[in-house]
């Protein structure tokens, strides 16, 4: 028994070590960039925030602030790009969702989805409301809870009668979050999306500027990438139309 306990503590400590270490210098740079923003020195603020990003720091708040900076600089496309990056980490943040929907309403090209069935839309909303990390933690939490419950039910008779309902309920939750988790992992690995960052991006029918241009898209539009070739993305616009755009006109989320 004692051996088991110490083993468990070892694992738990290991888990704690994976928690983010609050580096002092990252915090300093971030605060400094915030000051620059407050003084309306958006160019310098952008430089500092970008430096943090280049260093490898990943943070929803960082991406959100960068989005704000780009809006102030008049670069709506880049603003939306960084808001989308932030959305993957802090999907339920009210400031973020408000800013993003505002930005989407002022870009030239519009996206609207109204037709989905109510049920599917609700599931999709919940799926979007959790980040990858949150799904991992949720699935794991309910799974561990179920195990603890089952073990307890072995020994306490009173619990056993309700065992079926509780187990079933937890089981559903585990299934839900695990499927979200797998969905998000799949998205991370295989699905690529870009946002147009140039003021105007010409879409061609083939990956070559010698081709006749098909149409013109404007900054801020989010597209799915189906293929890549040299300096070009093949993008899907909506469900059925597609074309090729130069890589320097858009950036990956």
């Amino acid at each position: 028994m004692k051996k088991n306990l110490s083993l468990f503590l070892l694992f738990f400590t290991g888990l704690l070590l994976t928690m983010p270490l609050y580096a002092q210098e990252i915090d300093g740079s971030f605060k400094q960039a915030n000051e620059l923003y407050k003084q309306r020195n958006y160019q310098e603020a952008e430089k500092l925030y970008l430096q943090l990003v280049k260093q490898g720091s990943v943070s929803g708040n960082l991406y959100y602030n960068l989005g704000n900076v780009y809006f102030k600089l008049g670069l709506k496309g880049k603003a939306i790009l960084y808001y989308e990056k932030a959305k993957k980490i802090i999907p339920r943040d009210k400031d973020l969702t408000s800013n993003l929907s505002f930005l989407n309403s002022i870009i030239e090209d519009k996206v609207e989805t109204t037709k989905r069935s109510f049920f599917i839309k609700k599931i999709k909303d919940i799926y979007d409301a959790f980040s990858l990390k949150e799904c991992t933690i949720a699935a794991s939490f309910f799974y561990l809870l179920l195990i603890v419950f089952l073990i307890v039910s072995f020994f306490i008779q009173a619990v056993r009668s309700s065992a079926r309902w509780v187990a079933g309920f937890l089981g559903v939750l585990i299934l839900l979050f695990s499927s979200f988790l797998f969905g998000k992992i799949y998205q991370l690995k295989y699905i690529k999306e870009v946002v147009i960052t140039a003021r105007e991006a010409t879409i061609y029918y083939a990956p070559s500027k010698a081709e006749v241009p098909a149409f013109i898209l404007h900054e801020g539009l989010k597209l799915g990438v189906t293929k890549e070739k040299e300096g070009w993305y093949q993008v899907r616009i909506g469900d059925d139309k597609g074309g090729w755009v130069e890589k320097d006109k858009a950036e990956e989320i």
Partner: protein
Amino acid sequence: MIFKRSIYYIWFVFLLGFISVQSIYASDLEFTASVNRLEATLDDRIILMLKVSGAQDVSAPELPTLDGFQVFSSGSSSQVSIVNGKMKATVVFNYVMLPLKEGVLTIGPARLTYKGENYKTEPIEIKVVKDKKPLKKPNAPIHSNNQPLPPSDKDNQDNFFVELTVNKKEAYVNEQLVLSFKFYKRDETVGNIQYVPSETKDFLEESLGEEQSYREKRGESVYDVIELKRAIFPVKTGKLYISPASLKFNLLIRQERRRGSIFNDPFFDDAFFGGYVRKPVVLETNPIEIMVKPYPEENKPADFNGAVGEFNLNATVDPVTVKLGEPVTLKMVVNGEGNIKSITLPEIKEMDKFRNYEPEIKINRMDRDNKIYGEKIFEQVLVPKEPGKQEIREISFSYFNPYTAKYETLKQGPISIEVENVSEEEKNQNSAVEAVPLNQIEKKEITLYGRDINFIKEKAEDIKEKGDLLYKNVFFILLNSFPLGILIVFYFYKRRKDKFKTDVGYARLKIANKAFNKKLQQAKKAMNSGDGKNFYALLAKAMQEYLGNKLNIPAAGITSNVVEEELSHREVSSEILHFIKESFEACDMAKFALGNFSIEDMRNMLKKVENNFSLLDKKL
């Protein structure tokens, strides 16, 4: 009869289908025309929009017949919208129309050909009325002329004309160009001049002063000229279009006066009273195309912010000596020719030794040579953070000179100031200065969209390193697998316990060997202490209980016969059966025997029992 009727039905449905296919909206394209107003006065502008939905790679449509209008193109715009996953691309071609006469004017169908298909729009009727309100301008004649407006009078062409010119047809983005509109007039009296300036959608504009009047000789004649100048700055590259400017006025033709002098007043400008007859004229210039080049990428300075022209930079600091915590003002002046308004703050290096605030900006225009010249003054308040000799290292400003097609970087500095140290007391007193001087800053938030975005986040609490995915983390995986192992262990433990409780036979089976061995140990003890009677009694009991446990029969019910019956079912060899039978008999006999028992015998017995029963165990 029924047969014939169904034929008609089929034919009718087929016809309907045929007709609907032939409708205007063949294939995916939609081509529509719309206007911003259906009723207008002669002073109004009507905007016509020809919208193409479904494709963007269309050429400009063929304009309809626009009898009674003057039309100017004002460019096109494109948009993509994705609704429920379906993409729709649209292009809108915009035109500005000026009505020339009253009545009901028709905008005929516009035509478009795309991929071999022809499209056209529905015609639109516009009602043009004369202006009902009397004009408030002084000396303005009352409109009471009921005659329809004639088109431009060709007879008077030499007497007046208009001209639109620009000083350069090729330029860079944000380079200053001078757009000049001139109205030439010869020996005529004109009134009610209305000027419709060119549309310069792709340019920023600054006015270059009031209109100028002078005389100019053209060919044989001398004209009175009125000139209006604007400075324009292109905002993007490519072929940019300046639409024609137009001028509407009334030509005043003197007529024979019929009445006395009191009616000489031009106020009574009516055919009835005599005096002048007004003849409306409209003149329009040609449009202008400007080719706008992008900046060269080579040698582009890092701090280049779109300033184009010729400039000078000057920087001063006042005062040069100051106490710690007190402010100095850094005054930077950029002056020269170009779009002064769009100049951004010059870059100042290494400002971490100072606290800086939002600069105050002033612009002074000093136009000359018919171009915009001026200066932009940035006054920035700096508060030194450390005492001693402090330096403002370097101030730089880069711009692009379109005349030499080269970038120039102007530098100023370093500027030194002396910062006197202060006592602790004075430091605390001066802390009030640290507050941001808000009254200096003019807040000019973007009101373009009617609202601003939410503010930035103050803390980056969730910051972590890239690639830190939780689900891949080793400890996390272990943390999740470990309890599962525990669960499995507990599960089997539970099962066994339950089985013990419920299944008696199972329980007995499992304890048979243990009990047997225990009893044998007790028998051994008895044997060693010479207690023969007990030895045989215990031995018998051991065998009985063992068989009882293994066969799930109460121990008391173990008789030779029962044993024989049960064991023969289990394929036990007859030798063992025989031995068991004999053993029981021997033990029985020992119960009633008198006298001593030899230890030799007991030991043999014990050994035989152990051997035989271990063989037996294999079958049970």
